[in-house]
């Protein structure tokens, strides 16, 4: 099982849209796939019209394997399952601090799933906490969506610094440009500046109103409008991602 985290310190960068569409593509081309929604806002879960059972909470999540197992739900798409988030996840990092080896907790908790899925995607909350550290250890690839703006680039640099300071494996990090508006000169300049930086993916995701509408039709754009420019961009991003693993 390959684990891929969609991660960004900054919010509103297209993390969830990428998690939803890439996990959908993965379920089509390398089934089966699990999407694990770690964000207490539960946007991924919302997109798939799934809410967690009343009995499910962060406690159960931290207990791991069996508890996780019984709370996985099928999406409306074949071979794509989802572990929904719960509002109680907002305290995950505090609860995690009480565990023995918090950084390794997430990796350990998903061990048993490795025979069941070819791909596991994490959609994560926008911050840098103990949960993020646990997520870094559990992921084979950390995909970081970046809006081509100075602020976005700055948060990315912060992440790099954090990896170096904590002696983490920064080769896992693969940024890609998201919500790109080609007509903006700043976007074009930043993309040109960084596109050849090692680790950066070349495929960019355009800003597209169809992506925003995902909140209305509540399904991956690749499932509803497979021929839209954004869908095609996600498809190429998925292809680049599979290349990365070779």
């Amino acid at each position, binding site marked *: 099982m390959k684990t891929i985290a969609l991660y960004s310190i900054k919010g509103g960068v297209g993390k969830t849209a990428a998690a939803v569409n890439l996990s959908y593509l993965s379920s089509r081309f390398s089934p089966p796939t699990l999407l694990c929604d770690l964000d207490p806002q539960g946007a991924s879960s919302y997109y798939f019209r799934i809410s967690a*059972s009343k009995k499910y909470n962060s406690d159960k999540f931290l207990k791991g394997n069996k508890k996780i197992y019984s*709370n996985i*739900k*099928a999406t*409306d798409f074949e071979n794509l399952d989802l572990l929904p988030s719960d509002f109680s996840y907002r305290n995950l990092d505090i609860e995690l601090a009480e565990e023995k080896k918090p950084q390794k907790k997430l990796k350990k908790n998903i061990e048993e799933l490795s025979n069941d899925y070819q791909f596991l995607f994490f959609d994560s909350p926008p911050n840098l906490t103990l949960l993020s550290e646990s997520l870094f250890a559990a992921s084979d690839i950390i995909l970081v969506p970046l809006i081509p703006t100075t602020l976005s680039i700055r948060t990315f640099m912060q992440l790099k610094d954090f990896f170096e300071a904590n002696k983490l494996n920064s080769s896992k990090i693969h940024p890609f440009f998201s919500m790109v508006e080609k007509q903006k000169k700043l976007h074009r300049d930043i993309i040109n500046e960084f596109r050849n930086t090692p680790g950066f993916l070349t495929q960019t995701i355009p800003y597209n109103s169809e992506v925003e509408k995902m909140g209305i039709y*509540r399904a991956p754009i690749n499932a509803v409008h497979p021929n839209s420019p954004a869908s095609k961009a996600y498809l190429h991003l998925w292809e680049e991602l599979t290349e990365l693993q070779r």
Partner: protein
Amino acid sequence: MRTTPKTEYFRLSNAAEVETLLEQILPVGWKLESLEVSKEQKEFYDTFEWQAFDNKIAIVKKQAFLFLVDLITGRETHSVPFQKNCPSFLATSLPSSPLKEKLYSCSNIRAFSKLCTLDTRIYSYHILDDNDKTLAILTAESFCLQRSESQEPFMHLFALSPLRGYEDEIAPISQFLSVQKRSESLMDFREIFLLIMHEARQNIKGYSAKIQLKLNPDATIHESALQLLQHTLSVMRLNENGIKKDIDSEFLHDYRVAIRRTRSIMKQLMGIFLEKESRYFLTLFRELGKKTNDLRDRDVYLLREESYFNSLPPYLQPSLRPFFENIAESRKDFYKRLCRYLSSIDYQLSLNEWETFLNQQSLQNAELTLQGSRSTKIVATESIKKAWKKVIRHGRQISRETTDTELHALRIDCKKLRYLLEFFASIFQPETITPVIRQLKELQENLGAFVDFAVQLRFLHEQLESMASDKLLAASIGGLMATLFQKQEEARLKFHKTFASFDHEETSQLFHDLLTGCSP
């Protein structure tokens, strides 16, 4: 394993009913979303002995694919593209795939034949909650049997499959459907399979070449022998069609075993019918058996084709191809010849004559002979004892050289004993007869292998003598003969050890227990 919740099946009297029924039970805000109606043709396959069914598998062909369906869960577990529209196929003819492996392990020798063709019409629905999230898929399938008199569907089947994580939400609906008066809840896909086969008039497990008679130990041997002979006759008749249609080589094999059993019992229980009659029918079956020899020989060589190829170095293998092509070619002639005979009036009359003979036998006939009126258990004990002693006596006489003739003869003695044990098995306790058969089987395997190698060597030798000067083929045949000879010698060497374990106090005790356990 990533699990999907179990599908539940229901039968309703008609397909339209489900919507009305579900309207009563769906919680507020939930709805039934109807998807398109599809038509599908399904063909079911299995071997003559239902070996896929025995392995809890249904083989279904639909939309140019062959699927394996788990009989318990109803889930499709394997598939391969399958364009052919054929009445039967062998596992070896399928493209390399896990499905092929699976069917090969069910049977590597029997063909999978078409059992029936169904035309189905499938209505699918999604059960949606108030968020329009799909919680379960409901399919309503109407089954119509092709080529049946009635074109009305014989079954409306509903399958309710909750999506993972929604079993609890769907449980009340499934509960509701199962308690409806007009609905019948079915346990699993196996039950549906049984219903389909019943409708298609396919008798599941209706055939077994094995003897499954229930003899009465106190009945006369005349009566018991008739029971067996009627059974072997029915096995012959049941296999005729498969031989004629050339479905697989096992039909002829079972047919021949039935002839051998018939002859063996008649000979060993000589005296239960009038001598003149016995002699007449023994000749008839001997001649019939002979007519099948050539075809069976070719079948056996063709079955060995792969192992012959594998025992030669790759550069010699191609030379064997024309050799096997010749065998296949001559097989065609023998096949046609046998089919012609099986369809002849001559053959029909002979078998009818035999059948009439068996049916006309009565108590008076039993009393006409000395043997016939004796009780089954006495004759069983005596004849088994006699055959067993014969095996021991002949086995002990086998010289250190262990000649081919000696081993050939002993093999036949063993076979006779085996047929008697199998024939009378039902009058003994299973715990006394099973170990005896097991011991005998070991000896038979050794002798069988030996004779088998001898026959192959003889055949190859004949080929060598008759063939034109083809250096590579001669080398191949030489290579094969060397291997076979080596194996034959190994079997020969093993014989004395194997026989010693059969001619042992322990085996003797087993026979003793068996024969005294039943004696009056």
